[in-house]
Each structure stands twice: as structure tokens, then as C-alpha cells.
């Protein structure tokens, strides 16, 4: 990254783009985070969009808070690979003087952002959930230990902080009165790292209502204490025509197959109802269920972060509450029929 005194100070935001070339919803939340950093540092907010065409760049430019957008288009950007994106972003940043750089806290963003940060020797905070203006700059908050606690991260002066933005933590940016200018950026052909080749892509289609299509999901976590209790969740899911999911913790313990894992290392789901049972709500899990319309949590720990995203929460013993809920639906069906 080169110094240039005359250049307007700028915070860069690398947008989250789907493999079909559209802007993902997390990008809209990232604009709020980026705007907070830009305001705290007296900078403009510049979007960076890598895609196969310019649709995503136009979508980002249409959001209030974005001052301008740099659009790089290349067929090599999709399907996404960490090495190609890291090399492209590094090439763009190398010619500029960022005050800070924000990346999506999505599965892909968490994967390539550290590569870029290492390339520039930049400090990096993962999964930020808040930006705090400090008068002479900013600090960020991020969750640790499964999201049960959080820490405030400060960056040394003279550094260019990098960060990934946690999904669901920032408000969605609103549409702009008029779109920000979009500048097309051309990268040198040899700038892109093409060492990782995507040979095949298959969408996973399990039998029954698939997790990604289900309108109702009953999902279990560490609190289930073993594989056996998932039978109870299956019974509940069947009663409400739902699918069963599992947290990374439950899969890691070997209680359930990775096929039904929800979270940063599993599926991203967007049901109408997400019923989280014995799930604490680690950021890696929240990433995968941020698209749910209503979240219901059953957990014995009132401090569990899952309650922060829940519309309805029951603090209690899931081994009592779930059977009671099953009984409730059975009697309700009987009464209704």
C-alpha cells in the first residue's frame, strides 16, 4: 500500500458477492459498519466489488453511506476461491492508501481476508459486532469463546486495521437518493492467483425437506448432551413439517452428520422459523442462520447469546420443555381435528 498525502482518506469495504454474481445481504449490513469506521476516521467509504459482471457493483452503489465503488470484473472471480480473491484485493489495495479495510464475516470472507492481511502485515479483527468511536480513531468489539463473552480490540497507531464483519450485527443500509459513482478497475492478467481450480460443484440434495428449503427448522446443539436427544427434535420437526439441523458443536461431538450442520462451516439457512434447542449461539452458528425470519431459543443459560437474536426465548431445561412442546402440539392437533 503506497503513501499519497494528497489522496482523500478512505476506508475500503470488500463486498460479499454470491457465486451467481449478485450482492449478498451481508454487504448491506457491512455498509453500516464501514460508514461508522469512515466517520470515526474522517474518511470516505469506498466499496470494492469483485464479480463476473457489474450488477453487484451497481447494487452496492445504490446504498446510502457509500461514497464510491470500485468494480473489477473477471470470469476468474466466480466460482469464488480464496487465493484468487486474496490476490485481486491485494492488487487493488496495493495501489491505494486505506485507513482500514472491511471484509464480510461470511464463510468466504473469513477465508481470504486473513491472506490479504498477512500480505500487508495488517492487524486483523474477526467477526466484529460493533464499531466504537474513540475520539482519535476507533475500536471494535468481537465475540470469543463461542460468543459467550466479547472483547474490545484496539489497533496501534500507524497500522491499517483489517476486519471481518459479523452477519446480523449491524443495521441494513438504506437506499441512497442517488447512486454513488462506479469506477471500473482493470487488473493485470498476472495479478490473479489461479493455483486453486474448482473442478466440480454439486448442490447437496438430501431426502425429505432440505435444510436450505425448509420453512421450519428445529436445530440442536451442545446442550443436547448426546446423539439420542436428537430423536426428540426429529419428533418435534415432524409435527411441524420441519427439518432437523445441528450446530457445529453437536456435529463436532459426532452426534450428528455434517450434512445437517448449520453455521459458518455448514449450511446457511433462511427458514420462517428457526427453533434453536440447546444452542448457545456462537458467531459461527449465527452466520448460518441469520436469514431466519423468526428465531426461537430454548436454553438453560439466560446469558446465552442465542437469546439476543431470538424473538421468543424459553429459559429452561430442554429435556423438559421440548417434550412439553411436543405434547402441546399433539393435543393441539387433536383439538383442531
Amino acid at each position, binding site marked *: 500500500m503506497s503513501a499519497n498525502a494528497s489522496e482523500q482518506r478512505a476506508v475500503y469495504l470488500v463486498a460479499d458477492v454470491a457465486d451467481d454474481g449478485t450482492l449478498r445481504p451481508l454487504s448491506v449490513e457491512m455498509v453500516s459498519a464501514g460508514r461508522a469506521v469512515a466517520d470515526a476516521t474522517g474518511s470516505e467509504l469506498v466499496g470494492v466489488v469483485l464479480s463476473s459482471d457489474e450488477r453487484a457493483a451497481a447494487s452496492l452503489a445504490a446504498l446510502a453511506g457509500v461514497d464510491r465503488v470500485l468494480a473489477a470484473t473477471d470470469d476468474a472471480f466466480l466460482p469464488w476461491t480464496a487465493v484468487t480473491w486474496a490476490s485481486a484485493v491485494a492488487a487493488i489495495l496495493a495501489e491505494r492508501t486505506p485507513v482500514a479495510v472491511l471484509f464480510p464475516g461470511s464463510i468466504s470472507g473469513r477465508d481470504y481476508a486473513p491472506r490479504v492481511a498477512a500480505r500487508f502485515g495488517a492487524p486483523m479483527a474477526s467477526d466484529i459486532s460493533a464499531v466504537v468511536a474513540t475520539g482519535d480513531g476507533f475500536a471494535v468489539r468481537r465475540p470469543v469463546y463461542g460468543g459467550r*463473552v466479547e472483547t474490545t480490540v484496539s489497533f496501534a497507531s500507524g497500522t491499517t486495521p483489517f476486519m471481518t464483519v459479523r452477519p446480523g450485527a449491524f443495521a441494513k443500509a438504506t437506499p441512497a437518493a442517488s447512486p454513488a459513482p462506479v469506477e471500473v478497475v482493470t487488473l493485470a492478467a498476472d495479478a490473479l492467483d489461479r493455483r486453486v481450480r474448482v473442478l466440480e460443484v454439486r448442490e447437496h440434495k438430501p431426502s425429505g425437506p432440505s435444510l436450505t428449503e425448509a420453512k421450519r427448522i428445529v436445530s440442536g446443539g451442545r446442550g443436547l448432551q448426546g446423539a439420542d436427544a436428537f430423536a426428540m427434535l426429529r419428533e418435534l420437526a415432524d409435527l411441524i413439517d420441519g427439518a432437523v439441523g445441528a450446530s457445529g458443536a453437536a456435529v463436532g461431538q459426532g452426534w450428528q452428520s455434517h450434512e445437517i450442520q448449520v453455521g459458518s462451516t455448514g449450511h446457511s439457512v433462511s427458514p420462517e422459523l428457526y427453533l434453536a434447542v440447546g444452542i448457545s449461539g456462537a458467531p459461527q452458528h449465527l452466520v448460518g442462520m441469520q436469514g431466519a425470519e423468526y428465531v426461537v431459543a430454548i436454553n438453560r443459560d439466560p446469558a446465552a447469546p442465542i437469546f439476543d437474536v431470538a424473538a421468543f426465548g424459553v429459559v429452561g431445561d430442554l429435556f423438559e420443555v421440548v417434550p412439553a412442546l411436543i405434547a402441546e402440539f399433539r393435543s393441539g392437533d387433536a383439538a383442531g381435528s
Partner: protein
Amino acid sequence: MSERVAGGGLKMAALVKYIPDPNGIGIDPASRGPVFSGTMAVNTYDTYAVAEAIELKERYGGEVTVVTVGPATAREAILRGLATGADRGIHLQAEADVLATLDSLALARLIANRLHGESFDLILAGQQSEDLETGQVGPAVAALLDLPHVSLVTSLEADTEARTLRIRRDSEGRKQVIGVDLPAMLLMLTGRDGEQRHPTLKGMIQAKRKPLDVVEVDPAGLGEPVMTWSDPVAPVREREAIIVDGVPAPEAAKALAAWLREKHLV
């Protein structure tokens, strides 16, 4: 490239982190800080990396080096790898309070500096750690060693003649097959068929005879920290949820069912 393993095969390193048992963390009501059970564990994802490396060694030949950064107690994580079939260990050792000041990039630099020059064909690590969960160290090590990396790996096959890998990865419900040339770095999401190797008593005895390179990290060589962080606390949040607490389960279930019906969610 030098130091190829004799007779072909794969020269591999598996990175492991020794962490507070994720099942043993609670919140102290007074300080709102985390309290630990004192039990330590090898990061689950890293156990997959070690198991996969040993599996690859058995199939293609080669050798496996288990690498960790941690205080003296972290040697246990290396010994577990050695007991299940790894060949040697590298322990980058420092006091816990020194390590606590290191950010992910500083940790990655320690690892990359030690591994640089060893000409590993393949470096494996877990997808992320379960304690600090930055997910940064793996990609950063790959970047510092200029290796391509592939994350969320579930299984792989090697062509040791062509020196290429065919990798399966799972990302957001999409299954991908990836091709990459060696040398490369992989971040493991799951173990082979979900199986983890468990050390036997015989294995533990043999492990203590295997070569273990202990490198004292010089705190003076680490430079000034580029970032600092506060002691973690449980956040006090404003909640918009309807919370049912301290109510017998049947009543709680009745209230929840009524709410679900009212919202037309069931």
C-alpha cells in the same frame, strides 16, 4: 525443493492448538468474565488435520510433523499426535502470558518462520480454533509461505507422481471438488468418516521416544503489538425477545405454542 522424503511420499506438517476445553467454560456472575474448568483439549478441528495427515502417510508414504505454539503444557497436544502415528514434533514454546499478547498474524509468523525451509509438501490445520475463533492463522501461514490454501476440506486424494491433490470441500451446502498442485495448505472441516484416532497406551510410550524439537520463542523478537484487546466480558444486551424464565416447562411450552400459532409459524 530440498529435503524430499526418501522414496517419494508426502512430507506433511499438521498444526495443532491446545485450548481450554470448550465444554468447561462458564460465566462468572460478578465479573461477567469467563471461568475455565482447567481441563485442556486439542482443538477438535486440529485433531482432524492430524488424523488426515496420518491417513495420507499410510496410503502414500511420507512423514508427519505435529506443530504447536503454546506453553510447556501444550506438549500434550504434540504427544497425542505422535502417539497416533505422527513421526516428529515441533513445539514453539513460550509462557502463556507472552502468547496471550500475540495476535493471529504474529502467531502465523512464528509458525511460518519455523516451517520455512523445511519444504513441506502439505501443511494441514483445523478450519479454526474453538477458543478465539479468528480463523486467521491457517490462511495467514499459507500466505506467508506463499502456498495456495483450501478451506472446509472433508477428504482428499493425492497423485504423488503428478504432485497434485484432488480435494473435496463443503461450503454452505455446496460440495466442491478442487484441484491444486503441491505444495499446498489445507484447512480441515471434518475427519475421515468422522473418525478420530485415539492414542493407545503403547502409542503414548512410543511417542515419548520420537523426536521433539522444542524452540523457545524469544519475546524480544516479537516486536511491538499491532493490536490489543480487553479482558473478555459477557455483554449486557438490550433484548427485544419475549423471554419466558422461571416458569414450569408445561406452561412455557403452552406460551411458546400459542405465540407460534399467533405468528402463523406452525
